[in-house]
């Protein structure tokens, strides 16, 4: 069960008018795995997420998720299949309250008829309570999400992601702009989510990645340069050249 492949990217190439954002990228994710993806600016990290979530259609290649091809599917269909995404800058609905934001994420089925006709289910309300406790937002239930601090917004978005109950969570720079303490808490939160969920974390912050204590994929110029634990990739000559700098840094 644990060795089952959840996501398989095969020879993904994305070309923006000749510029190769991704170049024959191959990547496998096992179920329950926590994977960090790092790389210098322009390495294709965000495009990589765009391909999985259906925002960008690959020029060539195949994305297999739970045995199904994702290429050509609409974003909301991919989301319903179980791919959740957290964006780089927190993208929450600022004019809605914390609770309303979470309601949007936990509601199923996501059809207009269900939303207009029925009130939210009790189990979904319980789930919202649980999520708010996890991310320490219970005091802010009825505050407008726009009034939250930056760190709280990041956490609200993570809570929304978890509320969607995705099989695969794609988390783009979750600790950008967070304090050290918040960064540590976020790392613990993401670690606790893996196992049950499969989590992909994209980030620049090496301390944070180290704390995740997971396998790391290094992207460079649209392709996977190297894969392994933090120790392995820190010793890899190619990685040092393009990204990390000398170990003393």
């Amino acid at each position: 069960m644990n060795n089952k492949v959840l996501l398989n990217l095969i020879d993904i190439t994305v070309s923006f008018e000749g510029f190769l954002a991704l170049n024959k990228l191959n990547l496998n994710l096992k179920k329950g795995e926590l994977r960090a993806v790092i790389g210098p600016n322009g390495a294709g990290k965000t495009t990589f997420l765009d391909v999985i979530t259906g925002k960008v259609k690959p020029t060539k290649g195949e994305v297999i998720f739970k045995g199904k091809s994702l290429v050509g599917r609409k974003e909301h269909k991919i989301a319903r299949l179980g791919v959740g995404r957290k964006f780089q800058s927190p993208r929450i609905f600022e004019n809605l309250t914390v609770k309303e934001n979470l309601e949007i994420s936990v509601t199923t089925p996501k059809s207009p008829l269900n939303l207009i006709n029925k009130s939210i289910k009790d189990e979904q309300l319980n789930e919202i309570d649980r999520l708010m406790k996890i991310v320490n937002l219970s005091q802010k239930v009825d505050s407008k999400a726009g009034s939250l601090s930056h760190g709280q917004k990041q956490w609200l978005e993570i809570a929304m992601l978890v509320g969607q109950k995705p099989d695969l969570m794609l988390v783009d720079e979750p600790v950008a702009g967070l304090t050290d303490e918040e960064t540590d808490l976020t790392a613990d939160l993401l670690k606790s989510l893996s196992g049950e969920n499969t989590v992909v974390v994209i980030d620049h912050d090496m301390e944070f990645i180290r704390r995740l204590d997971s396998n790391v994929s290094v992207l460079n110029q649209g392709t996977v340069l190297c894969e392994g634990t933090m120790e392995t990739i820190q010793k890899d000559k190619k990685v040092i050249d393009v990204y990390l700098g000398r170990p003393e840094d």
Partner: protein
Amino acid sequence: MSLSKIKFDKKIVLSFWIILIALIIAAPTLLPVFRLNLLGRYLSLSIVALGVDLIWGYTGLLSLGQGIFFALGGYCAAMYLQITSASEFPNNIPEFFALYGVEKLPFFWEPFRSPVFTFLAIWIIPALVAGLIGFLVFRNRIKGVYFSILTQASLLVFFNFFNGQQKLINGTNGLKTDVTQLFGQMVGSESMQRIFFWITAILVIAAWFFAKWVVKGRFGNILIGIRDDEPRVRFTGYNPVIFKTIIFSIAGGLAGISGALYTVQSGIVSPQFMTVPFSIEMVIWVAVGGRGTLLGAILGAVFINYAKSLVSEALPASWMFIQGGLFILVVTALPEGVLGWIQGDGPRNLLQRFGLKRKIETYPSLEVNNKEGNNE
């Protein structure tokens, strides 16, 4: 403390409704027929404004083509009135057909002999047309200013089509309703107009409650989500196309009802309902009243139109300047509209500026809680 506040609010709401209903019942005796008729027309316009508020204020779709659906509703009502009052004319068809040598009623007029069909057509036909246009546009992910341009272009297409079809719907002359009969009475008569006023008043309230019901809860939250960050809604697993099509269709249906009520009270429907300035005016009513407030849309439509008729009577040439100035004022000084400004921090900030109210030193919620805590 909070309990007394709730009671207070309830009292205000209750007295508001009592005054409102009393005014509606008394209006026909208080106002001269001419003014009553104007008020009835402006109230009917507030229904189309509610639709604009739903699609623009809540969902962020700035449609400049609501005149299409407004006119369609008006034409449906007018066709029924014309066909059922045509018995004394040659061939038993409306009088204008004779001018163009048409002897046989065009096929699409036939169903309008039925009052039930007409009653449904007034809102279903505009809703379906809106749904169809909306679906095609939204499916192709056309949004923002391109959506606005497209709706305006559609408006022009409809305008030119209706304007040119003399043999089908009397073209540029439009269809008159004031001299037609309804239930044995002249539509333009005083007693009928009084009834239309009451029907309009009731339908405005019904439309308001309907719109409130639509935006309440999770459905309304998704609309706001689409307005603020549509891709995020999509990545959460919702299909924005369906939500946008539904709300655009609802706004179209409301516009149709509004157009039908406006037609029977102004005595004619013509392609003039589909001119570009009129559809833009609908947006201005909502902008001035307050986007996303519903009540603001109603008040904006009624007050601006009433002001328009009063100003036009006193200074015939100046209304366009005043309307333009009003719009500029709202865009620059009150971006949330008048009602949005009142509901927000507007009045408090104004009082502070004149030194009539203590300045807030921390967050408003903390400040208010502390103050109330001290009082206890």
